[in-house]
């Protein structure tokens, strides 16, 4: 199956799960954000917000070549 490249940004505590090459990360075509999160070994529920190209998306979003993906944990302090 074809491979595509995405740009990945992992915020705050999620940064520790960052792979190499976050600017140019390779995934299989057809990968959803949910599959990506599992592939990065990020624990379930650790991701609260998913942004693709500056817009909120849900975990079922299917990644496209060149997508800028941001994963954000829950932040609630005051």
């Amino acid at each position, binding site marked *: 199956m074809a491979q595509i490249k995405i740009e990945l940004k992992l915020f*705050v505590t999620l940064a520790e799960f960052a792979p190499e090459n976050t600017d140019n990360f390779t995934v299989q075509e057809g990968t959803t954000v949910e599959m990506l999160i599992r592939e990065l070994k990020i624990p379930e529920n650790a991701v609260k917000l998913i942004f693709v190209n500056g817009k909120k998306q849900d975990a079922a979003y299917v990644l496209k070549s060149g997508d800028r993906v941001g994963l954000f*944990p829950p*932040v609630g302090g005051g």
Partner: protein
Amino acid sequence: MCMGSERYARNFDTLTPTEQERLSSARVVVLGLGGLGGGVCEMLARTGVGHMTLIDGDVFEASNLNRQLLCTEALVGTSKAEAAKERICAVNSLVQITAVAAYADKTNLLDMITGSDLVVDCLDSIHGRFMLQDAAKKAQIPVVAGAIAGVSGQVTVFFPEDKGYELVYGKRGHLPATGIELRTGNISYCALMVSAVQASECIKVLLNRGDILRNKLLIMELWSNSFEIMDLA
């Protein structure tokens, strides 16, 4: 001491005299007087918001000294709401302050915010934030919300007809009580940066001026200096 016409001289001509007048009759509630709320009430008072209700049932602990503007060594063990009132009186005695040294809950919050123009969410629990949203929707007033963890922070604004926190934290029933701030702590300059953006959004909402972060989330991270605005809706 009102300091006459000198007090707001340096607000001009970023704010017009008409806008300054409008701020002086505005009513803002700040809920939570920790790292965010302490900064927000200070900045709104200096800018010239005329009426504020400052709510927090907590007292200062030594661990608040690392970031909470209202906390001094001498005030450890004393009421955050009382400290806020004294501080605002010292920096701008023109501001009318109602200090509430009690925790907001489902039974008293609606009364506390009804009749205000705006409520600023500076709470430190995700459940509390949803409670505030319920009350603000009933009272039909907008919310300017900030949240911090470590050197990261976020700010959003929503109006009564907007979806609000569901867009940021997900649906109720699946909520953690707190976010990752329990692990990362909270750093002084991040709290004040996020407070500053909250104060800025308050002034913009009150004056209906500029690009307001309505249904948008500004995400900031200071190790990497990343500032990004995301569409929530």
